[in-house]
């Protein structure tokens, strides 16, 4: 049982970082700092995300949640820090992880169909010029069916609703058949039906032994969706199993005065 640690109370750094926990973790981060200009966006993060579990990265706006994910993937330069996936440096492990970017990060007016986008998840296997065979097509269809969009394969992506766009991105990640799934705000701005569909898929992944890490901003659903939580506000605040690390105390420490105290207590109570 990984112990929880709280930085706010006694100024201690968050997890006791030993080589063992890093080896067991699906994703392990040591000393990660990222800055835009002179202001750190993420400062000195040590974190271990357990395998075969669903983890949430939670914190206020501008707390560096997405930046942390992007720095893990090498999309923004790290000022310091190392990242390993299943105990090995991330560079050699890319085939085993799938990334779901924020929906708004792309131009949906791009000339492509839903099926085209899902097939992008197969590109690493297909290589530059490998032919898309029947098996590949079938896999793309199956992934679309898993997110409830079986009939949308030939739809132009610009015609999708926000929720449908998010499902297509998830289907593309499923097509990668990865071990570790990194999702950036998968529930942001989607309808309730889509949220249910996505969480079902993620729970199925966990049941199949896969690891899921999502940047998440809806405090109300953290307890019902996730096993493990990582609270961050530029600096790591707390991490551990939701039951112990996601408390009104840790939320206060993360959000400061940004959330009304009563609201926090409500959340913590509702969770118990």
């Amino acid at each position, binding site marked *: 049982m990984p112990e929880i640690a709280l930085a706010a109370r006694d100024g201690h750094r968050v997890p006791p970082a030993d080589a063992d926990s890093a080896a067991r973790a699906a994703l392990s981060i040591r000393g990660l700092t990222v800055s835009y200009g002179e202001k750190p966006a993420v400062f000195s993060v040590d974190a271990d995300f357990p395998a075969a579990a669903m983890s949430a990265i939670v914190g206020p706006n501008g707390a560096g949640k997405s930046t942390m994910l992007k720095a893990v993937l090498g999309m923004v330069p790290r000022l310091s820090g190392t990242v390993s996936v299943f105990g090995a440096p991330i560079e050699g492990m890319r085939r085993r992880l799938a990334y779901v970017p924020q929906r708004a990060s*792309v131009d949906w*007016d791009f000339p492509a169909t839903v099926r085209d986008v899902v097939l992008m998840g197969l590109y690493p296997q297909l290589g530059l010029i490998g032919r898309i065979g029947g098996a590949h097509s079938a896999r793309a269809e199956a992934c679309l069916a898993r997110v409830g969009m079986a009939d949308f394969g030939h739809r132009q992506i610009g015609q999708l609703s926000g929720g449908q766009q998010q499902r297509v991105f998830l289907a593309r990640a499923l097509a990668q058949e990865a071990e570790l799934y990194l999702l950036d705000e998968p529930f942001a701005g989607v309808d309730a039906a889509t949220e249910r569909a996505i969480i079902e898929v993620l729970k199925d992944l966990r049941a199949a032994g896969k690891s899921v890490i999502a940047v998440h901003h809806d405090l109300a659903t953290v307890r019902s969706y996730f096993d493990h939580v990582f609270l961050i506000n530029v600096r790591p605040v707390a991490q551990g199993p939701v039951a112990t690390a996601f408390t009104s105390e840790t939320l206060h420490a993360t959000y400061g005065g940004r959330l009304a105290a009563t609201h926090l207590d409500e959340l913590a109570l509702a969770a118990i």
Partner: protein
Amino acid sequence: MGAEFVQLSLTPMLIGVLAAIACALPGNFLILRRQALIGDAIAHVVLPGIVVAFLITGTVAALPMLLGAAGAALVAVVLIEAIRRLGRIEPGAAMGVVFTTLFAGGVLILERTDTSTVHLDVEHALMGNLESLVWFAADGWGSLIDPAALAALPEELPRMAAVCLLVAALTALFWRWLKIATFDEGFAEALGLPVRAIGLGLVIVAAIAAVAAFDAVGSIIVIAMFICPPAAARLMTSRLGAQIAWSVGFAVLSAVLGYVLAGYGPLWLGQSNALSAAGMIATVSGALLGLAALFGPHRRREGAVAGA
């Protein structure tokens, strides 16, 4: 339309067509990446690249020119990126600083250098000289199978054909990388694809197309080849493959129609002097874009405004 056509019009027309295709192919991706103006910048820096290559080698041979232009494009892109980041300057303005400066430098060196022995002057560099690329050795359609006449083809034709083929082959080979890095750079990066190299490669290929086409149509009209056919194609379809096909179609149509209008248009109007073929090709490509913008079936954005 016989011997005279083969001798005077066939090769320029073919070169125009090949140049238009070679530029339109990378142009499709430049437009989708919102880098249409990188095409603009490349077209402008081809001139200093060529001039510097000439200063160093003293010849106007094809290879040094190509290398010079590709090098200039690379320098331009690196400078733009450096200025954008270091000075925290908006990309459009960074581009404006770089390409005007390099272009001005190219013009100045060109004016101060004795290039009377070679075919290199400012006006030619700006407007091209498609009409001069005639096939003197030809005396009719039969020349197409006459080895002696074929050997005397203007060297621009095989060069342009080779570049066009190269661009097409690279586009086909890197199709998936280009598509994914254009649509979703973050995802491509997470897959471990070299997105920066892809972006830079696209710019270099565009530069190679530009320098080959530059010879025929001049530096500014190259921009029309980069942008107008793909932009028009974008308004005709919402499938990437189909868009590429449309853009090639528009490129060919612009080149042929533009060349014919420039060469024969004045005759039909009772005048004897031909007009600039390169200028007319750009004009036609712009007119085709105008028609597509008015009537193209996919002229509007799909669905709701994305990213809003």
